[in-house]
């Protein structure tokens, strides 16, 4: 079941329901579906947690996921995972689930629309100064923009903007290109090769989710570590 034809580039163009100026397109419906799955799934699993080794297999699964995300964040942020785990972990889980569900027929990943990825990248864009200011204070954070001299201020600002654009287009381009490749393959070699590409798509989706959250964490870490601290670490 394909709800998008080959000339539609984004799921925004698939409209399920419309009333005056309110439109429900495929992007928003499937975003809600992913949110619903995440919320209900984690509510069901965490309803009865057991601290002993006799736990349900779903609890075991979630423990593995959360602890591996935490150890990744720990390595980048030098042991302050608890502070950043809610934000970065949510980004990873949302993108990973949104991409992995692409094997379900009739589902279009909301991340293959530019609007979803732009929203996620803007979340990172806003979160970086918030984390930086809470860690260092306004004065130290703003000072970072004027290093090494004040001439570099426009370059720092441009860097912030262009990396947000890069985050947006990277996730969108990867997922959308994969959707298009499968659609084209379906019309050329209908049976076998689309299945192989779907299996490859699972890998691509997970890697993109990993890269998005790791990059968000790297940006946050670079905003929260002061300049002097970085020098000391480099010398060690």
């Amino acid at each position, binding site marked *: 079941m394909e709800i998008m034809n080959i000339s539609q*580039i984004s799921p925004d163009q698939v409209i399920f329901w419309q009333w005056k100026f309110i439109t429900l397109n495929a992007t928003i419906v499937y975003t809600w579906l992913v949110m619903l799955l995440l919320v209900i799934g984690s509510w069901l699993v965490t309803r009865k947690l057991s601290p002993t080794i006799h736990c349900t297999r779903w609890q075991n699964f979630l423990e593995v996921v959360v602890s591996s995300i935490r150890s990744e964040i720990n390595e980048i942020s030098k042991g302050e995972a608890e502070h950043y785990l809610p934000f970065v972990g949510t980004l990873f889980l949302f993108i990973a689930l949104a991409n992995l569900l692409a094997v379900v027929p009739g589902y279009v990943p909301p991340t293959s629309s530019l609007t979803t990825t732009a929203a996620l990248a803007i979340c990172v864009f806003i979160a970086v100064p918030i984390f930086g200011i809470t860690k260092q204070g306004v004065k130290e954070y703003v000072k970072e923009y004027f290093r090494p001299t004040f001439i570099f201020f426009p370059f720092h600002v441009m860097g912030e903007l262009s990396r947000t654009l890069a985050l947006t287009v990277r996730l969108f381009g990867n997922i959308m*290109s994969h959707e298009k490749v499968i659609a084209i393959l379906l019309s050329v070699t209908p049976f076998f090769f689309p299945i192989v590409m779907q299996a490859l798509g699972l890998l691509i989706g997970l890697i993109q989710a990993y890269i998005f959250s*790791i990059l968000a964490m790297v940006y946050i870490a670079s905003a929260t570590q002061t300049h002097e601290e970085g020098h000391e670490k480099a010398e060690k």
Partner: protein
Amino acid sequence: MENINVAIASIIAAALCMAVGSIGPALGQGRSVHSALSSIAQQPDERNSITRTLFVGLAMIESIAIYCFVISMILVFANPFWNFVVKKMGG
């Protein structure tokens, strides 16, 4: 017939964009994977941090190729000049 010319031009431009634009990222990715593999072979203990940095770097390099891809996708599927030409022709 102007209509056809726009279609031909945008398809050729899309193909050129993809072909030329993926040479640089391919060379860059090859170099970075090469040096990451040789440093993993020299220092297997640092494997985790090398792999993570490699992935981040690969994502950065890859985004250049992705830009080219998005541009060529726009040229093929959502060409902004297409509507302009159709309107001008009075279609």
